């Protein structure tokens, strides 16, 4: 049994911080893609048009029903082959963000859908009875109310995505996890280094979840507004 070289924690701090920045960029980018995609999918999912609804359901089922790891591999390895393009230099980063964005789009779509459906039916009826179109009643009446209700589950999705982003290490994208792996390979101190990696993730998720709680409380005060 070797000894734990705790001093490595201080030495690894800087490279791990660099990896953390990549992890945060990756998560933020994926969430941005996911929100836009999720909003479109949720509206499609609730549309009267059968084709739109079918596409949205198939998409959501596929991305929620298959592992993110497989999706990352597919985007990274299968897409260039399928569409016949050369991987650009930063393709790891593009594929990582892309795969996570496509994946979170499916989850966020369901969050938006349940938020929209949680709004009392009378709200839409009142809007329609005033002569508003379906789109107008969504935009001015339903969505402003739904957005407040989806902030807590959306925050939880961010946290889950932040942790799941560690999966991109599989395509050698130098995020927090992959950086940790490299340092372990060099130092042969898996416990010390992975413990430090875990702490980095923990600090991020704690900050995020506190922030989610805070917004939840603030919105809760004016829930009916």
């Amino acid at each position, binding site marked *: 049994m070797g000894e734990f070289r705790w001093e490595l924690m201080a030495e690894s701090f800087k490279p791990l911080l660099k990896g953390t920045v990549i992890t945060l960029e990756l998560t933020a980018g994926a969430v941005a893609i996911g929100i836009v995609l999720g909003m479109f999918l949720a509206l499609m999912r609730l549309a009267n048009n059968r084709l739109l609804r079918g596409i949205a359901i198939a998409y959501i089922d596929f991305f929620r029903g298959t592992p993110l790891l497989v999706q990352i591999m597919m985007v990274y390895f299968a897409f260039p082959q399928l569409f016949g393009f050369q991987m650009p230099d930063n393709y790891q980063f593009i594929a990582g963000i892309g795969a996570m964005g496509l994946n979170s789009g499916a989850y966020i779509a369901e969050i938006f859908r349940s938020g929209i459906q949680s709004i009392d039916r009378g709200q839409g009826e*009142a809007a*329609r*009875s*005033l*002569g*508003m*179109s379906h789109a107008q009643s969504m935009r001015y009446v339903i969505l402003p*109310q739904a957005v407040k209700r989806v902030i807590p589950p959306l925050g939880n999705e961010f946290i889950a995505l932040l942790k799941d982003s560690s999966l991109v290490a599989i395509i050698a994208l130098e995020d927090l996890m992959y950086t940790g792996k490299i340092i372990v390979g060099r130092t042969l101190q898996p416990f010390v280094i992975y413990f430090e990696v875990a702490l980095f993730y923990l600090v991020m998720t704690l900050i995020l979840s506190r922030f989610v709680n805070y917004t939840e409380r603030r919105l809760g005060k004016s829930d009916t*507004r």
Partner: protein
Amino acid sequence: MIHVKNLHKHFGKLEVLRGIDCHIKEKEVVVVIGPSGSGKSTFLRCLNKLEETTVGDIVIDGIPLNSETNVNAIRREVGMVFQRFNLFPHMTALQNIILAPEIVRKTNKKEAEAIGLELLNKVGLADKANEYPDRLSGGQQQRVAIARALAMKPKIMLFDEPTSALDPEMVGEVLAVMKDLAREGMTMVVVTHEMGFAREVGDRVIFMDEGVIMEEGSPESVFGNPQNPRTQSFLSKIL
């Protein structure tokens, strides 16, 4: 103003409306009464297509209710007041009122606000313009809801049990607003359990049961001398 011919409405296998024929004239105040489950609310909701009709024709102010364009156009002319108010909780009273004029009628904001304040004044709530609905009592909320519907300058107003969700002491203030409206010559269809209101304001009373119109006539004849045994039994229970 409103022509309804052979209106049928099914919810799945359940037939809620079984052939309604009805003609409502301009400036007429029609009060629809009947036991719960008789289809009176469904009938009212068919008049602005909040419910799809199964069979039958509805013509409002000369426009048949058949296409989506027509439906949106009709809804601008037909105001509706709901049992549970359905005010938009994220907007102040005034914002609730001016939203539809602004985005549907494209009235400019200043003008819409002027109309909104005038309507709030009319329903006795000029001082509540900037309050959110959760700060208003049920009666106040319903009066704002009436003002909201009136802001579209409708030709017809539909009331779906407007006082049923109110505490008793607030019923009067809402009925007072409705009486004013009737006096000004608004065409109104009112589903209600307020028989005093029906008697005082109604030009015609329609008694519905089991999805058909069982009896109709002036308030004096329906309340004073009901012909149909169903009407007699219903009235004996509530009067």
